[in-house]
């Protein structure tokens, strides 16, 4: 195990210890981590998480896929073309700063509480972050890189295909990573609003003061988001391997 991994584990251990101590000191004001972990194990063994997972994951996947399908091309177009940027900037930025949560009552009025609602909420949570991250990535491709492409014969569509696109790929991945975190947030907020899936679990545990179980659900959601981010990173290592190489022969 190298130093980075050791430090990472030490950081996690410190956080866990702090939580545990704080729980002991406040005498149950904060449920200690050990109790939360036990409650989590209980939930898993009793299969109480299966139903929310089934309920949530498919909507999360559809909403996120749509956000990627719209956000990446819009971001690329905004980055590549001044015209597209001028057209899209105001609407995208306005919606980017709009609190999607404040739109929920409106959305529920339009889409009801069915699958469409979740998909739209997840989509809205993720799409603008994806588009703007991709846009700034494309804008960040240096003039030198573009000129070098032109000197070596890339022009027109070829310049996009062989220079701008590959050069901005790491930023597309950054957009996807940010988008996945936002999508999980959107899913949870949507479910809290309509008392479904993880949202209904959280509401129920809170109502009956089962704080340990509620916190266990929060932990599960954290792990879910972190796992999905890791998945995107694995894709990055596979398709953009140059972003993770460093310090070979100098």
């Amino acid at each position: 195990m190298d130093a980075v991994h050791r430090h990472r584990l030490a950081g996690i251990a410190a956080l866990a210890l702090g939580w545990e101590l704080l729980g002991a000191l406040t005498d149950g004001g904060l449920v200690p981590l050990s109790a939360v972990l036990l409650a989590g194990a209980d939930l898993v063994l009793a299969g109480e998480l299966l139903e929310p997972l089934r309920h949530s994951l498919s909507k999360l996947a559809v909403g996120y896929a749509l956000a990627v399908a719209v956000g990446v091309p819009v971001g690329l177009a905004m980055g590549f073309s001044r015209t597209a940027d001028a057209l899209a900037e105001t609407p995208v930025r306005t919606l980017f700063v709009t609190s999607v949560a404040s739109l929920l009552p409106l959305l529920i009025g339009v889409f009801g509480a069915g699958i469409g609602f979740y998909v739209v909420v997840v989509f809205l949570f993720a799409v603008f972050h994806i588009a703007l991250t991709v846009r700034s990535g494309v804008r960040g491709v240096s003039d030198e890189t573009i000129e070098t492409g032109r000197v070596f014969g890339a022009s027109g569509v070829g310049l996009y295909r062989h220079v701008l696109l590959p050069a901005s790929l790491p930023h597309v991945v950054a957009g996807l990573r940010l988008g996945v975190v936002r999508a999980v947030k959107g899913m949870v907020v949507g479910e809290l609003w309509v008392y479904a899936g993880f949202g209904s679990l959280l509401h129920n545990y809170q109502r009956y003061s089962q704080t340990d179980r509620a916190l266990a659900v929060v932990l599960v959601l954290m792990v879910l988001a972190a796992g999905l981010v890791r998945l995107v990173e694995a894709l990055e290592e596979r398709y953009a391997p140059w972003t993770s190489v460093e310090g070979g022969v100098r």
Partner: protein
Amino acid sequence: MPALHAEGVRKVYESDAGAVTALDGIGISVADREFVSVVGPSGCGKTTLLRLFAGLEQPTEGRVETDGERIESPSPSRAMVFQSFNLFEWRTVRGNVAFGLERLGVPESERRERVEEWLETVGLAGFADAYPEELSGGMRQRVGLARALAVDPDVLLMDEPFGALDAQTRALLQSELLDLWEDQRTTVLFVTHDIEEALLLSDRVVVMGNDPNRIVKRVDVPFERPRHGRELQTTTEFVKHRQEVWQLLRNEQ
């Protein structure tokens, strides 16, 4: 017909602070298979001159030509080597050297052969699958050189190619470039602020001045080829030439 030719060239940049004249009244010719260096203080417009020949910029006034034709856009036939290497970081060493050949539509089998040949020549055959990020500065510039020469250019435009390297690596790459040039005799326009480098490599040195940015003098470099850096640089003839150019530049500071 000269490989590169510029006449009455003036280049003015418009900026918020007003118009800046980067070049004025520039005339320069580089003959086929000639190695010409441009030296001058920073800000004298020598890089602008190179960018005009590359086709990355257009002159405000005057003509910039290659083989008698006006230069309107960049082309691999005037390949460039950059001070900051400008390698494509998403491509391996092999992919970087192949880039120009791919754009030119060279068939894969031939491309592969030429890339391997050039990697061999610059001594990077063992690093074909490495990414630029993994290489030292000297190795990166060898990739830059191989990428430029692989397209078999009519002219090689070099913009302070060794300026970002440490002294030892610079001397090594200079001598490699000398050997390579003996072998290829490609037409080269080489921009540098290093007088010794210019005298060591070139057939002719063009000295540029500051404010106004213009050509001060053209100096013929008489040293026999093949040249060897350390031996040549200690001869009285070399020292005399170095003094002359140095004096010209000093008057321009």
